[in-house]
């Protein structure tokens, strides 16, 4: 059973489109995250939710809107996609909200053309 699963794994889309990435965790964790990994493999946190409430928003353009319908799900919606949004997006979860011992999904490689 996959602990943290995100879909789709690959996403190719044109500039200006709107797209969503879904994430689900079956670990019973209270906290979920979205990270962005750039071409140099640097991982940067975008959002953190604890029990469906936003606790971290790291200077992300408001074209990115996370939504957490329940504590097992954290989806990421991106409006008006730009070339610079191309990256691998990782969902993660952890027991507590301090970011330690996070479990990551397999990633979604987003390519904007």
């Amino acid at each position: 059973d996959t602990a943290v699963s995100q879909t789709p794994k690959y996403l190719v889309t044109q500039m200006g489109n709107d797209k969503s990435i879904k994430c689900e965790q079956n670990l019973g964790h209270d906290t979920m995250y979205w990270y962005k990994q750039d071409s140099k493999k640097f991982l940067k946190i975008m959002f953190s939710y604890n029990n469906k409430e936003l606790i971290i928003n790291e200077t992300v353009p408001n074209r990115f809107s996370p939504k957490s319908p329940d504590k097992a799900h954290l989806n990421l919606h991106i409006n008006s996609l730009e070339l610079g949004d191309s990256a691998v997006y990782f969902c993660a979860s952890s027991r507590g909200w301090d970011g330690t011992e996070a479990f990551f999904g397999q990633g979604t490689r987003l390519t904007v053309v």
Partner: protein
Amino acid sequence: TQLLEQSPQFLSIQEGENLTVYCNSSSVFSSLQWYRQEPGEGPVLLVTVVTGGEVKKLKRLTFQFGDARKDSSLHITAAQPGDTGLYLCAGTINFNKFYFGSGTKLNVKP
């Protein structure tokens, strides 16, 4: 400027050699984790260290947290091709801010 600097960025060694990867910062961390990431996969947690000076061993991997909790090292003994991957350190500050290091790409040749 990144809060956590890892060195070296790239490391290519022969099977059986030993290596050390460093993770340094000027900030004090509440805890520090090491992850390994393989191509096409998400990072997988290897270890968490929380006490200054703490040493943890995981088979051939030895992790150390600096006394001042500003740095950490990962030592691999007798590296094997299966150790190949991207090694990432990540640190938590004040239990509510966390950052990843720049990563060390390790290639172990048979």
